[in-house]
């Protein structure tokens, strides 16, 4: 599964949305259930899933699919370029 799908799945499970309702435009501002608690859960799941660590600032600011995916990729440039 590619990164984008995995992230969408995580977001859908945590925000309690259908996978088909989560696309590259989804984010805390536009998606039901993506509140501050969900934000922490999403980051925690992504960190565990992809084995990486964001900064405290990133944990708060990476609050949309469009911000999350490049951030995940930038931590693994050689593997998933």
């Amino acid at each position, binding site marked *: 599964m590619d990164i984008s799908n*995995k992230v969408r*799945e*995580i977001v*859908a*499970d*945590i925000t*309690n949305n259908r996978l088909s309702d989560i696309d590259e435009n989804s984010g805390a501002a536009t998606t039901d259930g993506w509140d*501050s*608690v969900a934000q*922490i*859960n999403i*980051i*925690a*799941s*992504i*960190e*565990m*899933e992809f084995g990486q660590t*964001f*900064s*405290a600032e990133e*944990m*708060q600011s990476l609050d949309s699919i469009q911000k999350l995916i490049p951030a995940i990729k930038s931590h693994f440039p050689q593997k998933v370029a």
Partner: protein
Amino acid sequence: MTYEELKHFARRHRTLKDIYHAHRLFATLGDSEAGWIRSAKVALLTSYTTDFIIPLLQTELAISDVRCEVYKPGFNQFRQEILNGRSGLYEFQPDVSIMAFGLEDIIPDAVAKFPMLSDAERQRHKGEVLELCESLVENYTASAASSILFIQNLAVPFATFDPLVRDGRGIDGFVAEVNTGLQGIARRHSNTYVMDYARLVATVGAGHWTDSRTYYTARMPVSQENWLAMAEMYGKYVRGALNMDVKCVVLDLDNTLWGGVLGEDGLDGIAVGDTYPGNVFRRFQEYLLSLFAGGYILAISSKNDHDDVIDVLRGHPGMILREEHFAAIKANWKTKAENIREISQEIAITPDQMLFIDDNPVEIANVSAAIAGMRCLHLQSPPLNFQKQIEEARCISKLTLTEEDRDRGRQYSDERKRREFKAKISSVEDFYRDLKQRLTIHVDHEPHRARIAQLSQRTNQFNMATLRLSEADVGRMLASSDYLLLTADLEDRFGSSGTVVYAQVRKLERSWEIENFLMSCRVLGRGVEDSVMDFVFAEANKAEVEAVFGTYIPTKKNKPFADFYCRCGFEEVEASGSGEKRFGRKVIDHVPRARFVELSVA
């Protein structure tokens, strides 16, 4: 995924992503698709964010067939909610509540300036914390008397400073004193227990417990890495509160209790003793012995020659577990399913309350296919992890040890000796006569309060109305003059069986109502229930009431005893569509029925 597949998935996939996924799928299952056995309302009363744990706890309990509903007051509202008897918390009617606070939230200034505090100030702060806690517990137990309250003990606050040398004056000493105080509070209030959070933190490692990023951005003391461990601990305590443990563990022998195969390697060749790998099995036996001491019944199902096994149990110098620790020893060449069915009958414990463990996956597959509801655990190599695998099977979660628990294993082992004795004696009558049974009846006996609650929770078969009681419920009836609570202790030539009968009688002016009558199944068929019933009528006669009534409410498990009141000479006076029946008998009509029991009143 089906419900069972989903449970399996959630057991095996221990990452946040997968557990959130499982949580969502559990939520989409209809009631007919899900196999919930219990439901539990859990309130989280915490001074810090615990939102993270809700889906994880619900999934954790779903694995054990518990549908869990969670209530959580608004941020830092937990004190107000506990103190206000009409708050949302009490409206929710929790079965279990978990109260947790961090020192940083309760006495932030004192924590911040801790090294500056004088001894007197430290004492004052300790008093302040414990008084607050005690008043919360008092209010809680007054408003939610029949629920169980866990107080989470404290870990040393994150990023505080202590000198290297421990002299008791550092913050760690302060935390230890508060934790001791919390235990005192729990002892003073019924249905209140300390949850050992500090131990979990220590097990994981304090340095890995908190993630400074989420600590500072979201006031979260638990790192996301440890959320699952936290949910597992909460789950364990909730299962303990719901009394969901297995009662009996059925053990394989070869490569489970010892290394090697007895039939091939012989008594001298099997590995159990002081040196590796025998010491691994020895320690595993010590763990099983601690279960035995905790009231879990042990039994053996092994493909071996019976005499060889007895030789090892009696004579192998490295063994920890001996004959006297087992309620049944089935070492033969029958299928394990057959043996387990026999064990189940002999010790009167149903398979769904038994855990079968074996290192052989074929045996596990056969038994779980043959016996519905049987819990089976395939122990995977290496044996180094056997104990951990049992702990992870979510079958063992006892809150406290009663005297009865400590003694239970011996009673079952005595019972095995009784069966062996019975097999040697020609007539059943002779057997009972030679058994020399003595029954001691206690009336409104306060020291039996915990045992009554435990019997009401644990007894499923011979239980007329299946009224589950908390200790507080029992306490109220003991204090009331409207009730007569009878308990009976049984003894015979093989030893004591402890308190085995409980009868709850409500005294009305002209008649008595037996609201519930229950008996521990391990003394079935020995006439004990008749003796207690005779006693009820004798007392009713003294009190000059006209009649005694009794109620039977059917459950999945108590049907074999539906005719108990009829056997005692009662007649059916009322029946409802749901199968509930009420029976009655005039006091003057009663003829004593007990035959082989010598009765005395304490």
